[in-house]
């Protein structure tokens, strides 16, 4: 495998990791606020809080990793995306900042506050939308380069059906992934009412997720036919993704093997995400940046890969420890262990 292929694969894995953990996190924040509004606070609040508290910090790191890795492996991307994304990128930072700080203020601060919770829960829904703009832009047609100046064509972006279908998909899949995970977590805690409530959320968001995926599929066909053709040649991945979705939803419906149902949700998104990514190659930003032209210096590429492997040797055991203590520790999940 060439360095550029390793590089983009590593980055894509991180983005996938972020997709899963951040979805759980964003969705949980939203459900927590929503249940507060609908008077179901007591039902799900404890469950959500017990999961989020030890892991919220870790979630952020996946995103930073992706950004830094992108600059490291493909410095040209930093140039094009950096210049074009000033406004959407800044808005995403502001939302992330509001969300992160008000989560901490509310959870660790001296008092529960409605406003803090609104800022935290509400901002979480807009982040996936603002981040998904990067995926939209990578399909090409939204960046203009004239006389060495890179600009984002806002008018084109805001009127593009493709852009809106991606935003929609980002939103509903966040809610679906999160609800599926929390259903599993609640059932593990033996918290029947919370499980039932979260299960209805999961079922409710399953159909929109698939509908939006189809919408994205068709709008890619209109927006970038070349990419659509490459996706068709990888169609087996999307078929598998759909199968995983069916199994996951069926398991949630039957209230059975909820752990496995979440694994299938993860597989569903893995197949779709990697199928999409693989068909996107060799372009990072179509047609301005391809992985072959913008690759970093080989010495740095190798150094990054070594650092990456060394880092994983440190991270994987620590992550396992974290999961063992807070996800797979029955006493903690059931709330029998205090702070």
């Amino acid at each position, binding site marked *: 495998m060439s360095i550029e292929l390793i590089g983009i694969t590593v980055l894509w894995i991180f983005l996938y990791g972020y997709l899963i953990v951040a979805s759980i996190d964003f969705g949980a924040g939203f459900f927590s606020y929503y249940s507060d509004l609908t008077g179901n606070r007591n039902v799900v609040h404890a469950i959500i809080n017990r999961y989020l*508290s*030890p*892991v919220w*910090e*870790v979630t*952020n*790191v996946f*995103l*930073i*990793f992706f*950004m*830094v*890795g992108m*600059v*490291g492996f493909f*410095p040209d991307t*930093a*140039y*094009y*995306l*950096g*210049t074009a994304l*000033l*406004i959407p990128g*800044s*808005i*995403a*930072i*502001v939302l*992330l*900042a*509001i*969300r*992160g*700080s008000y*989560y*901490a*203020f509310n959870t*660790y*601060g*001296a008092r529960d506050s409605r406003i*803090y919770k609104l800022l935290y829960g509400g901002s979480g829904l807009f982040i996936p939308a603002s981040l998904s703009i990067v995926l939209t832009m990578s399909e090409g047609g939204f960046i203009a380069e004239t006389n*060495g*100046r*890179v600009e984002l064509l806002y008018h084109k972006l805001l009127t593009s059906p493709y852009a809106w279908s991606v935003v929609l998909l980002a939103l509903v899949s966040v809610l679906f992934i999160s609800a599926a995970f929390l259903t599993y977590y609640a059932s593990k805690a033996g918290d029947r009412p919370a499980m039932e409530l979260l299960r209805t959320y999961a079922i409710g968001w399953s159909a929109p997720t698939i509908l939006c995926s189809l919408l994205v599929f068709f709008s890619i066909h209109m927006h970038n036919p070349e990419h659509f053709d490459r996706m068709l040649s990888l169609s087996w991945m999307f078929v598998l993704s759909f199968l995983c979705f069916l199994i996951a939803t069926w398991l949630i419906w039957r209230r059975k093997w909820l752990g496995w149902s979440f694994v299938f949700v993860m597989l569903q998104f893995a197949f779709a995400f990697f199928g999409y990514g693989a068909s996107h190659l060799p372009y990072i930003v179509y047609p301005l940046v391809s992985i072959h032209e913008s690759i*970093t*210096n080989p*010495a*740095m590429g190798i*150094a*990054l890969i070594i650092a990456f492997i060394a*880092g994983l040797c440190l*991270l994987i055991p620590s*992550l396992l*420890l*974290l999961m063992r*203590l*807070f996800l797979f520790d029955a006493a903690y999940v059931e709330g029998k262990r*205090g*702070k």
Partner: protein
Amino acid sequence: MAYDPVLYSRMLTELTFAFHIIFATVGVGIPVMIAFAEWTGMKRNDPYYLLLARRWTRGYVITVAVGVVTGTAIGLQLSLLWPSFMRVAGQAISLPLFMETFAFFFEAIFLGIYLYTWDRFRRPVSHFLLLIPVMLGSSASAFFITTVNAFMNTPQGFTLKGGSITDIQPLVAMFNPATPTKVAHVLSSAYMTSAFVLATIAGAALIKKRDSLYHRKALKLTMIAALVFSITTALIGDLSGKFLAIYQPEKLAAAEWHFETARQVPLVLGGILTQDHQIKFGLKIPFALSILAHDNPNSVVQGLNDTPVDERPPLMVHYLFDSMVTIGIFLMVLSMLSVWMVRKLKSVQYPRWLLRLIALSGPLALLGTELGWFYAEVGRQPWILRGYMKTAHGATTSNQVDLMLLLFCILYVAIGFTLVKVLGRMFINNELHEELKNRGIEGGPAQ
């Protein structure tokens, strides 16, 4: 004022950085202080110190959260505001940037575990051990990110050919001449600042409630740490001066308003600079700059006139440098005095004036940190990569930077305001008394 993306990019970066550095600094130092407290509590079997560690940790998490989000902002703004710079330098600095996130990841995982396992382990030492990866992670991320900044001051390990860089040696770039002094100064000043910040809490509380045993213990612990770290910081600061004399003479010369290259150069404190570069009202200490630069009163120190006019840093950095050094020396003397007083006044109340000074020490230390960073950063203007790339060539060409500057101003004001409110509620109007009671430490039912 005409629209200038470079100016606004600089302002926005300064704003984010100035806000972030507060949380980054305490983020590196406070885990060390928590470790001291928990260790002392465990060794002496003293519940006061254990409670101290717990309460510090609670406040610490909140500052970490703000540190994480502002750090994310810096990380993304690097590419958003300085895309041309990142296109060139991204190749050389991505290794330490990458490793910084690894270190931070490591810290984040163990901090999450530490927070929720206070009463979970049979042996208390297991919980204490979780702090070691937290301290390692936070200090390592400071280390890696500082090497990036050091690289911008003394770039090496690559060749620049027509706008693109080749022949990169990642480790040579990382371990550049500025790395040792910068990293050491950043780490020790972060430990020092955190010690003073925590001392401020104890000092302020003792002004209100003069007989609190809990706060007396906190004051004693923080002041001993503050003394050790402020001496270390001063010693390393001296080494940093010697580094500048050799590798960045224009930065040192600008800080000292030193124009003609000469031997036996005096050091100037304060003063005003006239149009024709004469110094008025300044306090001159003979030979001091030569001693600071080369440890030898007869040594030659390069003056600013040897640097081309368009490559000189702004001369106002003199005030930044002087204020930073003054604060540093004042705090060192204060910590010496406090440690001596704490020993002398074992059971007698501390004098009010001392407590007032201690209550001021944390904000002062933070101010010193800010001034030091501003000196280091403004002092390398007009370069973004000293000797290679000017700041004006690294910035974005976008037309909306001013709008973003406004947006981030509002954000930081909002976060800063809430943070002060939340922390204030936590420490000033606290229920310390009740917590002591509940834990059976003081006044309540027997243990």
